[in-house]
């Protein structure tokens, strides 16, 4: 195909990733537009990488689940224009629900690999306060008439209860313990200054109290206790297991990253913080969408020739504690394995649907720098309507890495 990669594909590197602090729906960003969030992220990526001439960006792929209002009308193009990118830089919108940003990354990365692009911006935004999941959706009545999916499939909390049903060994107690650990790890990562470097402060206006500068995530609850978690109600099912405490919340936020062909990053003096090894997407029954990452990971491993044992660091999206635990059980990994979610996860940080995938990658990239002994890392997440998304990355800091660190 393209001359720049004829006969082979090019290595694709993760140059940099940033995000806005995440907010609670109706919280800090209640009066902030979704497009302003992603614009801020894109501008910060350029500011942090001054050696990248903006006109060298070949694509801006921005994911949003609810592509409506300030997340609508081809958000990738809108965001590029609002961010002041040269008008020659194109953009598009991506939707794969929670795996939107992941898909933005894998799609643009593939285009880089085959030589269609040299540099791309990929990211996601979700303002769930302004745009609740499913807003404006018009489901085909055949879903119900032909029983194509279980009625619980569209209520994410109910799908999480279904995963508990499938794996009786995953109890509420385990889920709560996992949730508490997530909160504690986030608090520790904040204390260690591991989260802040990849946050871009966001000004948020409040008509009745003025502008504030949001510099940290709003959702974490560092004072969480097991007792406190045990007392929470189970809104999706009487005497169920899924609570607000062992799930990610309803959140607002945006993420973005710069991807480049390895050779182009070297040419432009851009850092290579991770090298893409491969990725996989897979489908499962929508009513147990939480198990999606299991087949997507198996697919990714099979296609990259790696095994689960080769993975030294995991960034798993914590939509629900139960779906993470199902993944860990499947692969024989302990609930408190130190390779998993070193900085905590979405249960504490929040999960603004389509934006979360790049948060996982950004955190993995930082952990790679901290752990040169680790060669491979993985991000994985479950996806509404029954899917999973997995990416596998190589650590350029590792001695055996195929791409030199710059």
């Amino acid at each position: 195909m393209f001359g720049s990669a004829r006969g082979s594909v090019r290595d694709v590197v993760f140059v940099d990733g940033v995000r806005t602090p995440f907010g609670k729906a109706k919280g800090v960003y209640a009066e902030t537009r979704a497009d302003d969030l992603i614009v801020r992220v894109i501008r910060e990526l350029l500011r942090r990488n001054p050696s990248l001439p903006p006109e060298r960006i070949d694509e801006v792929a921005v994911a949003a689940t609810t592509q409506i209002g300030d997340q609508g009308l081809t958000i990738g193009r809108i965001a590029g224009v609002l961010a002041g990118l040269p008008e020659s830089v194109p953009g598009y919108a991506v939707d794969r629900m929670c795996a939107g940003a992941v898909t933005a990354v894998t799609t643009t990365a593939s285009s880089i690999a085959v030589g269609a692009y040299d540099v791309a911006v990929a990211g996601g935004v979700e303002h769930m306060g302004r745009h609740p999941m499913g807003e404006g959706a018009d489901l085909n009545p055949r879903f119900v008439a032909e029983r194509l999916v279980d009625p619980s499939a569209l209520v994410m909390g109910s799908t999480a209860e279904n995963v508990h049903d499938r794996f009786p060994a995953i109890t509420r107690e385990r889920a709560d313990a996992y949730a508490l650990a997530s909160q504690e790890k986030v608090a520790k990562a904040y204390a260690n200054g591991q989260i802040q470097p990849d946050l871009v402060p966001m000004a948020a206006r409040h008509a009745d109290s003025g502008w504030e500068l949001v510099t940290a995530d709003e959702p974490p609850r560092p004072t969480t206790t097991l007792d406190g978690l045990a007392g929470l109600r189970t809104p999706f099912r009487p005497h169920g297991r899924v609570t607000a405490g062992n799930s990610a919340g309803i959140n607002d936020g945006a993420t973005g990253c710069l991807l480049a062909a390895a050779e182009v990053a070297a040419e432009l003096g851009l850092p290579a913080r991770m090298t893409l090894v491969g990725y996989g997407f897979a489908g499962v029954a929508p009513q147990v969408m939480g198990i999606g990452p299991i087949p997507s990971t198996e697919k990714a491993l099979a296609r990259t020739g790696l095994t689960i044992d080769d993975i030294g660091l995991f960034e798993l999206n914590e939509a629900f504690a139960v779906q993470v635990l199902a993944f860990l059980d499947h692969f024989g990994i302990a609930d408190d394995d130190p390779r998993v979610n070193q900085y905590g996860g979405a249960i504490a940080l929040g999960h603004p649907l389509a934006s979360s995938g790049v948060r996982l990658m950004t955190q993995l990239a930082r952990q790679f720098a901290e752990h040169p002994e680790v060669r491979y890392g993985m991000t994985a997440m479950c996806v509404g309507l029954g899917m999973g998304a997995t990416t596998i990355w190589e650590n350029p800091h590792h001695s055996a890495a195929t791409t030199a660190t710059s």
Partner: protein
Amino acid sequence: MTIDEVTLDYPDEVVTAAHVRYVTLPGVAGPVALVTLDNGHDHTRPSTFGPAGLRRLLAAVDEIEAHDPPVAAIAVTGKPFIFSVGADLGFRSSITEADRLRPSLDALGRLGHDAFARLGSGRLGGRNLESGRKVPTFALVNGAALGGGLELALHCDYRALSTGIPALAFPEVFLGLVPAWGGTQLLPNLIGADRAVSVIVDNALSQNRTLRGSTAFELGIGDVLLAPADFLEEALAWVGRVLRGEIDPVAERRPVQRGDAWAEAVARGRALADARLHGAAPAAYRALDLIALAETADRDSGFAAETQALADLSVSGELAAGLYAFDLVQKRAKRPAGGPDPALARPVTKVGVVGAGLMAAQLALVFAHRLEVPVVLTDIDADRLDAGVANVHREIDNLLLRHRISPDQANRYKANVTGSRTVDAFADADLVIEAVFEDLAVKQAVFAELEAVVAPTTVLLTNTSALSVTEMAARLEHPERVAGLHFFNPVSVLPLVEVVRAARTDDATVATTLAVARTLKKDAVLVADAPAFVVNRLLTRFLGEVLGAAEQGTPIEQVDHALDPLGLPMSPLVLLSLVGPAVALHVAQNLHATFPDRFRAPTSLARLVEAGRGSVYTTGPDGAQIVDPEAAAALRSATGAPRSATGAQPPTAAEVREAALRALAEEIHLMLAEKVVAEAADIDLCMILGAGWPFHLGGITPYLDRTGISEAVTGERFAPPGIATPPR
């Protein structure tokens, strides 16, 4: 504080809140207090400062002072798109008792100084600004910053400007005030007297010219210029760099030149004010005095002098007229009085222009550019037609050269402007305007010819300056679709159009014409079909008095400068040159025919035209403008002997001026009685927008009222005291 709370009572104030939140910046010990100025409305209602808003600002600093942990700095910014547009003008207008004016404005002046200095000084720990702890202060100017808004920014130690600022200016002098919350003292000491004179005086006197963020930054008003997309975040990051000592904006500022340079700047300002105003209005001169004072005055005495100037000007007729004129231009011009329901307007998708001469070409250009529809010019003479179309195409190219339009727009407009030797091309036009020779019979014939071709609802407009629109339409089958649309030359410059409703014009036609005027970006005043409508009738009456004096032997220069004390944009005889004596003669003849007892026969004007003189002035051997002796002779050689010949003295300049003003008062009074326009305000609006008459005259009727001329001539005022003149 010694401020009398009673004199600052202003219940209608839209209060701008000063919200305080605390921001943490990396590497900065202690929070930064971030003050947001927000009146709770969107950007269409910009935040202003009235007495309650200023007190909110003081309360915000009180709160900041008490904050624990102590703040490292104070930053102030605005709601989206607006920093602050300064003092609430409604406060002055709300005062209806004359004896409250001066104390109220004096108190507001002091309250503003107090609030701005308290925030801007960063002195915390007691109201005494000399004691306490000093923290750096920052203005993060995110949007429009006018007058007091800009002054608050100047009180701060450092300023960040957004490239998205649409307007940054001191409009005070334009309105009849001075920047009196520190502007005249702080700005020259920041950017030098010369640049301050440009901002405070020159721009204000140049149709209230405003600066954009980038130009304000180039002048030195800001320390950093940032893009609007993430202005506040990056401005706060910059605040952090300043607070951490990584950068020192003060060291980057240009040194201010004092001594001779300062004096020269003030002198330049005076020359400029004299050229525009001839001393007619005090504000510019007071501002220049204050700028002069700012070179050496300490802050307290400089600010006290500002307050004194504000109090003095608060009772001036020029300020009352300026505020009135501002309101007319901002509001009345946008919603013409007496207009029908705008919903009655019909769409206009194609325009015909009858004629291909200079005026026709100007009209075709403005229709093609603003309405963006096909425009067909017509002329029976093929050469004239080709020249007319070529003329329009050339003007479109000029717009392109000046980057007013894009190449694609130029292509579109040129393709849209075509010529036709017959009116058949107008068959599908929704609107046809004629700009043919000013002769009633000719125009009647044109309309008759048009009616045979166009649809019954096609709006037919005339650009006549003096003929009767009603008579023009009289013989038509559908006279109800005829109206006047009277432009002023040069069409692309002067904002006024007079929309003439003739005797049988229907509402849909008027609504369509008003809607078209608005799309053309013109301000419309609805006038009745009276001879010469408003502007030409008054200018002709006025000019008649001036020319009459010349006929009686008053020297031409003296005659022409007799009106200088009014501060008009140009003298009458320069205006005559601009309009063209032939056009002026045509209007004058018409008015003389209708009102022979008030509009004298324009015999001297006729001689000027006959002598082929386009102007009373010519260029002398040394390049200077001098009176053309032949033109002077033409104006002077009246049929009757000059008064000087009979022993009587020719009128003095003061007599010429008085006669001209009395004539205006009489004529306006009659026009209102004839219901040419709805109110005197419409007359003023016409004179401001169509003749460029100044704000300090309020157009003209406020001046006639405040000088007593209207009462002396007509026995009554045009408006009671307190509306366009100070309360009594």
